[in-house]
């Protein structure tokens, strides 16, 4: 249905489906871009390297009819995978924050969401 944008459409669906967690349940992930990106970066790099090596060694491959064809790092890493490693961890954090909203802050060592700014949370509220 989406042709070469099919994989990207799946990623867009992930973003759209989890958006109410931020907007309605007030997960406060996108609202804290520094902490959000700092949490993502190590995972993005490590799993990106894993993906790169796996593709080079033929563990998995992508259907050229269902992917954009845009590739990075010497034509190896598909754009879709770069997006995947940003979108999926973000969805996980949004889910976790939503669960926190619903179950409450009981007994954890994290700073309460409404208290003073986090270490990596210097943005205005």
């Amino acid at each position: 249905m989406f042709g070469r944008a099919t994989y990207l459409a799946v990623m867009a669906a992930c973003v759209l489906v989890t958006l109410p967690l931020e907007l309605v349940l007030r997960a406060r992930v996108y609202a804290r871009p520094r902490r959000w990106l700092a949490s993502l970066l190590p995972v993005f790099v490590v799993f990106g390297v894993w993906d790169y090596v796996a593709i080079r060694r033929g563990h998995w491959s992508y259907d050229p009819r269902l992917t954009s064809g845009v590739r990075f790092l010497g034509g190896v890493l598909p754009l879709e995978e770069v997006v995947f490693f940003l979108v999926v961890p973000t969805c996980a954090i949004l889910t976790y924050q939503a669960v926190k909203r619903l179950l409450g802050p009981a007994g954890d060592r994290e700073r309460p969401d409404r208290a003073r700014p986090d270490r990596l949370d210097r943005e205005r509220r």
Partner: protein
Amino acid sequence: MREYTLAAAGGIVLAVVLEAAVLRTGMFLDRRYWLALAIVACFQLLVNGMLTCPPIVAYDGRRILGPRVACAPVEDLAFGFAMVTATLSLWRWTGRRPR
């Protein structure tokens, strides 16, 4: 050689070590982590199906054990666990209270 199987097992170990020995946010004792993990796992099966049933992503059968869940190799569940666990551990760590 079943390289993806080995890498996936290594991914689980590294993610668990990251949380339990390095960042130590107490996440594995927090039921909210396990609930979030369970919810994410359900959606992972859905997305795995969308990516591997057509297939958008195809796996080399020589690199995996063989069993598949929602079209995707079982190794993908380990990959997902490692990625989500590492991410949430880092999220908790970056939001920790100063001592």
